Each structure stands twice: as C-alpha cells, then as structure tokens.
C-alpha cells in the first residue's frame, strides 16, 4: 500500500484505465509534456505516447466537441478542463450535444466521455479559478456527475467513470489535490453511484461531497468535544443522487444539514432538502438546513475564507438544527 496524494491517485487511476483499454485517450490543455497544471497527468504522455495523451489547442468547446467525435469513432476520451471557470465555453457541447446524443440516437450512439474538472475554491486563486459549477451539470438529463473527496475514491472513481458508457462530469476538489492517504490499489471499490457514510453518528447527518467532506469530518470531530455525535455522508455521485443511502442515514439521525461551496439558490442542497421533505416529512425533527457559499460571485481570494463554509459555520448551523 502506498501513501498517495489525490493528484497522484488520479494519475495512477488514469494509468490503470489506459493500461486496461487502449481506446482510452487523454486530451486537454497542457496535459502532455507539462503533465497538467496540477500534474494529474504527469508522465502519462511519456509512457503512452502522443497519440493517446495529447495537448489540444486552447479552446474548451473544441476539446469537448472533438471528444464527442472521437467517441463516435470508438474512443473513450478523458478531457481535462484546466479550471472550473473555463468550462463554460464548452457548455453547449456538454449540455446540448454530449448529454443528448444517446437519447437522440435511441441508444445507437454511445458517449463514453469523461470531463475532468478541478473545482472549488480555497487555494487563493485569481477569479474564475474557484468555481463550483456542479448544479448546472447535475440539472442536465443525460449527464452524470461525480465528485471524489479523497485519494482512495479518486483512484477508483476515475477508472469507474472511464469504464462507464455514459458521459460523466468528474469533479476534483482542487484544494484536496495534495492531501495524502493510503491507497490499496488491489482493494474492491464501492459502486460509483453510491453515497457513503464516512462517519457514523446519531444526532444529525452532515451531507457533503468533494472538498466539503473533510470540512464536515473536522466539524464532526470538533462537535464530539461538545458531546454531539454527528454523522457525515459523502454523496460521491451528484447525478444520480443515491437517495436510499441519504434516507437511511437521516431516518436514523432525524436531522440533516447539507454543506457545499456552491451558492445555495437552486443548488444540490435545495434538491436534497426537497427530496427529504417528500420522503421523511413525519420522521424529521428539524427542517433541512444548508451551509453554502453565499449567493454572490466568487469573491477575490482575500475574502474567500469568509465565502466558503468552514468548520465554524458548519457548527453554527448544526447548533440551529439541533435546537428544533
């Protein structure tokens, strides 16, 4: 077993996927010789060659649009979008073309395309480098959206996403790229579409994904000192959402707080709150509350610590939920 950063775990996962299937190709800006701005593809062009790991011109719509054509030709393209804020030039290709091709062709044209996007804030970056665009994609029929939160999931989930015949937006929490964990590459992965309880508790369920899972685990540890036993649930898949696991958890704890960096309005938290109210209306002790980024553009980085949910903000809302 090796200690791997999330970036390295993704790298190893991509390598394993490319070893397994020679139709897997990696494409994106600066992913070849440079290895990507976060080094996730480091060394892969050297080992697999320029036909399978290639730098593209600097145009995101072109990256996704040509990936669609490559998929029609039988390839399994893995696109890297350099930063979350740069995905929007590809929005038509993702939402109107990639997501709909399977349905439009009544299943005759498959779209095994993965779009990797480093997402979220917390790294002191300049504007357009800290966005959380997941709701745009999770709202789109035909797309699937997943977010890894730790190196082990990163290693396996990227391989599972590549093996899927559905188009997948694969979100990587960029501020967790350098966090390490033991990764047993011989282990058996959990299903890609399943949420996971990462900390058992009895008083309330914190529901998070991507970068906020660690924040919630830290909050749960801090709450423990105050005698509060919080459960933490890592959604892992944002589309489809694994509601059976969410319901099972909240049925036990009877309280839920959803935590994400993205703005609250019409976001993942809203969808989860709606579903919980439909399913567990008589069983919950408190309304579903949310801890999210504010409904502002992502602020200049000297303000981002105030914008992003942190341990204190999570605990503050937990207190509110527990007062019901």
């Amino acid at each position: 077993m090796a200690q791997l950063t999330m970036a390295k775990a993704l790298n190893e996962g991509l390598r394993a996927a490319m070893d397994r299937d020679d139709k897997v190709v990696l494409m994106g800006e600066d992913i070849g010789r440079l290895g990507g701005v976060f080094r996730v593809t480091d060394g892969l062009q050297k080992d697999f060659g320029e036909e399978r790991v290639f730098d593209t011109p600097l145009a995101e719509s072109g990256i996704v649009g040509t990936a669609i054509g490559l998929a029609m030709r039988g390839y399994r393209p893995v696109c890297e979008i350099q930063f979350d804020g740069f995905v929007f030039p590809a929005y038509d290709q993702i939402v109107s073309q990639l997501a709909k091709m399977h349905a439009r062709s009544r299943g005759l044209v498959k779209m095994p395309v993965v779009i990797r996007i480093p997402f979220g804030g917390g790294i002191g970056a300049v504007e357009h480098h800290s966005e959380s665009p997941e709701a745009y994609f999770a709202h789109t029929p035909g797309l699937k959206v997943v977010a890894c939160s730790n190196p082990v999931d990163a290693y396996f989930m990227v391989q599972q996403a590549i093996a899927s015949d559905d188009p997948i937006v694969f979100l990587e929490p960029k501020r967790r790229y350098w966090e390490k964990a033991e990764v047993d590459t011989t282990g058996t992965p959990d299903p890609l579409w399943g949420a996971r309880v990462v900390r058992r508790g009895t008083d309330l369920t914190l529901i998070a994904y991507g970068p906020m899972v660690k924040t919630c685990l830290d909050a749960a540890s801090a709450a423990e000192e105050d005698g509060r036993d919080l459960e933490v649930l890592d959604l892992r898949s944002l589309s489809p959402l694994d509601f059976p696991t969410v319901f099972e958890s909240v049925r036990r704890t009877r309280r839920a707080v959803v935590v994400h960096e993205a703005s609250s309005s019409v976001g993942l938290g809203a969808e989860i709150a709606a579903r919980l109210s439909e399913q567990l209306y008589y069983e919950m002790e408190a309304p579903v509350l949310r801890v999210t980024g504010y409904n502002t553009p992502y602020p200049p980085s000297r303000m981002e610590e105030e914008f992003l949910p942190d341990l204190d903000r999570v605990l503050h809302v937990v207190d509110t939920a527990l007062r019901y």
Partner: protein
Amino acid sequence: MTVPEATPLVQLLTPEGERVHHPDYDVELTDEEYRSFYRDLVLVRRIDVEATALQRQGELGIWAALLGQEAAQVGSGRALRPQDFAFPTYREHGVAWCREVDPLHLLSLFRGVSNGGWDPQDKRFNLYTIVIVSQTLHATGYAMGITKDGAVGDPDTGEAVIAYFGDGASSQGDVNEAFVWASVYNSPIVFFCQNNQWGISTPTATQSRIPLYKRAEGFGFPGVRVDGNDVLASYAVTRAALDSARTGQGPTLIEAFTYRMGAHTTSDDPTRYRLASELEAWKLKDPLERMKSFLYKQQIVDSAFFEKVEADADELAARIRKGCLEMPDPDPVTMFDYVYDEMTPLLAEERAAFATYHAGFAGGGH
C-alpha cells in the same frame, strides 16, 4: 451585398448547361451517371416540395427547405465513398438521400415523432444537428479518430469526413475551433459550407467581409469556391477534397456558392427582407434546369427519360405522403428510455410513476 462576381468560381456547367473546363477540376462520367445525377436532383427537390406541402397541411411542425441547394448537396453527397462519414446540419436532405437515409426519417424529425431515427453509424451520416455548427467539432473529432486508427493514406480505402454548415454558421466559434483543430492535427476532413446568401434574414455580408473560402488560408489549409448550383463542379471539387483528406493531405474548406430559393424554414417570410428581383436572378441559375439543358445538349436523353424521372418522383412523393400520414405517434413512456446507457433510479422511478398514472385512466389511455 454579396461578394463581387470577380471572385474565382469553379464551374463545369454554365447556367445555360454548357460544359466548360477548369484546369484543376474535371469529371468524366458515363451517360448513365449524368442521367442519374439529374434524377437525384429531381427526386430531392420533390421530397422537399412534398415536405413543404405536408407542413402547410399541418402534418409537419416545421420544414427547412433545401430548394435551390440541390446541386451542392447531391454533388457533394455523391462524392462521398461508402467509408466516408458525413455530419449534416438540419437542411441536408439531399445528402441524406445520397446516404440512402429514408426521407421518412427526415420527416419524422420535423413531425415531432423522433430525433431522426436512422442509425448514424450504419448510414455513416450523423443525426441532424440543430444548434448551428456544433457538428463541425464532432466531425473533426471523428476525423482525428480516423488518423489515430491509421485509416488514412490509402487512396482507395482511406477514410474521410465531411462537415456541412452554412454562411451564417461561419461566424460561430465552434467552426473556427474546428478549423484550428483540423489544421494542427492535419485531420482528414472537408468543411463544406453552403453559402446560400442568407442566414434567415441576415445576408452573408453581415457574417464576413471576405469571401468565406478565403478564411481557410488563415487557418493553414486550402479553400475553394465552387458554383453550388452546378452539380458536376460540386461533385468534382468535393471528390478532390475528400481524396486529398483520405490520402493524408489534411483539410479543405469548400464554399459552395448557392442560393436559398425558399424561406429559411416554413416559419419564415423572406419577402420581409429580400427583393423578389434577387430570387428571379437566381432562378436563371437553377441547378436542375442547367443539368437538364446539359443532358439535352449531350443528346443522351429523350422524352421517355424525363417522363420516367417524373413518374419516379411522383411515386416517391406519394410514398412520403402516405408514410407521413400513417406515421404513428411514439408511445410517450419511451421518452424515459435511452436517456442513459445505464438507467438511473430516478428515471426508473419516474417511468414507473408515469406508467401507473396513465394506467389509472379508463382503458389505460387518456
């Protein structure tokens, strides 16, 4: 308003049907082939006329007519080899005909019954793309895949791609990105731009200050303007460009200079933005009339031939009309199918709820 007449134009057939020669492009076809080109022009126009009538009678939601663009489409479509792959817009009914896509599939799209319904891989003709020019990137990616497969180089078995778009589409970012991609990867692709002079109500002059074919030079590959109302020239130029692509010479931009003789779609009213005199001038360059004149001048047809073509067209139109009127509406529950390769629990739940809801009505219907 339009580009000056002095711009070089590849032409093998004058509007009067005179066969002329060009130093770079030529065709030598058998008499039978010449006749079959004409037959295709007539049949695709007949499909178009019948579909327009069906729309007017309320049988189609909308129809995008190809009227006037038959030669550009039949010429380029017949230049494709079986192994080539075409990526159309929503007006490529003539190319669809050449790829042996049943016209009823096209009607099913505009009737609202399906999104096309043909197998794109089998026909090597992608589904129509409605969002202007998105398909040029798909075509380029497909062409990149051909190169990766090593299926380029051989003049007989090499594969090539053709991407269709129009003068209005030339302003979109995606086609310019496709030009960049195809150029730097030297992809086996032909960009076939039908400049029909109008993007709905917007003239080409609002899209470009230079002739569109000249844009290719800036991207690093050849561009050529062909008389898009001349089926022989459209065929010759496209065939040469496809052969260049399949043998590894990279992309070509073809600007087929033509005219949209009808409305943008059946929802459009061109009398609001263009002069009748312009249409009258283009009618003198009608692609069918010049081919007809050529066949007469070659003395390779007789009245029996034209009668037979007309009879074939009548038969085709009748089949289309009957097929359209008899086309069943899809079972609504099928909207849930094929959204994903692996269906999600949410969709399975919605599908079941939908079925239960409808089963609750008397007789299971509503």
